[in-house]
């Protein structure tokens, strides 16, 4: 079985046992529970910068909060802003801007992140590629 087929199988597995959730913004509720519990029980484990960031979460706009949680649930490291689409978030660019202003996210264009490219090139592949070209 190749990787594509395996991925497909994973997707099929995920589709079983589907029962619609009562509230489509469930993740926001869950995150609030996690945040409040952690802050209530373990406030002393966070430093001032972390507390400021976590404290500011409630003050952010609803869309911004949702986008932050959505992004935190994704495995990928970088996303193209125009390609981000969530039906419950009305303005993604505004939410992105607010997240960047608050310090949760960093962004820009690919020119700003040459490291992204470099870190993804496996050394072996690189040498193989050079050999191939030579």
């Amino acid at each position, binding site marked *: 079985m*190749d*990787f*594509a087929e395996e*991925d497909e199988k994973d997707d099929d597995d995920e589709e079983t*046992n589907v*029962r619609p*959730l009562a509230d489509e913004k*469930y*993740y926001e509720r*869950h995150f609030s*529970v*996690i*945040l409040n*519990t*952690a802050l209530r029980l*373990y406030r*002393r*484990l*966070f*430093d001032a910068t*972390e507390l400021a*960031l*976590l404290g500011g979460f409630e003050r952010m706009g609803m869309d911004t909060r949702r986008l*932050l949680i959505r*992004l*935190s*649930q*994704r*495995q*990928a*490291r*970088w*996303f*193209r*802003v*125009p*390609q*981000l689409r969530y039906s419950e978030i009305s303005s993604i660019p505004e939410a*992105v801007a607010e*997240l*960047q202003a608050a*310090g*949760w*996210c*960093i*962004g820009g*264009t*690919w020119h700003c*992140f040459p490291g*992204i*490219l470099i870190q*993804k090139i*496996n050394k*072996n*592949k*690189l040498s*193989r*590629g050079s050999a*191939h*070209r030579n």
Partner: protein
Amino acid sequence: MAELRQLCRELRVTAGSSKDATVLAVKQHLASQSVLVGSPRKSTIRKVLKLTGNLLLYYSAYFTTIEGSIVGLAAFAKQLLKRLELLFFANTSMEERTMTTMVLVEKDVLVYPKYAIVRSQPLFVDREYLLSFEAAIAAEAEFLELCEELAMGASESSRTAATGRWPRKSNRLQSFATEDDEIDESFSMALQSAAAREAAYAACKRIIDLWHDCMATTTASPSPASYFLQRFTAAWVYTRCASMVAPVLERLRRHDEAVQLFRQLLGQLDCCRGQRFFKRKRKIFVFFIY
């Protein structure tokens, strides 16, 4: 061209009439992807890199894909969110419980017995403990990732045989700790190359050193009273790592070091006591066979 055709099949893109048309179709497909890099197995970019090995195509595809503004969570923020999950779910390993668990519970896919949880003691005595635990978890992840990469490399090189499929991560993790300790065949194959052996040995040495350092400092500082809470110490995580390192040392044919490590692991009674039978059995096995 054969590689390009394979790439098209993998990405489910219809090949064009000429090579240029096909490359264009691939580029267009990549440009429509929202995820740039991420999941190692599912990432489109990784697929391209893995299949073609053609850097020119890779570069052009990459630059086409990342036109426009991009955004990502800051590393600091990501770490903070991970910490929240650790504290809430009391995770002792890598991502075994996350927010997904809550959804699964809500959908009745996962069911827990109903009981009241009383947290008589905090998971971490202070921030220092938390940070050292996180560092240990990171070291463990790094070690496992290296093993995974080695095995993936070996698996890829033998892909023509179509049997070298690397098992799922959960199985792989299990394979280090199961009673029979059958490290996956791919991993053994990976260790056939000198460079891989060197890398694996360096990683093993690093883990052992970290474990020794940690055990030396932990004896001097107070440890949690409950055996359960010991799981949330760096010492526990490093001990768990060292238990995984021992079978790798065997595979590297460093039997003396493996036996010595087993002795040391059996000599401590603070962490991972549940694995004592396994360690004892392995020690006897290695000692008498080699």
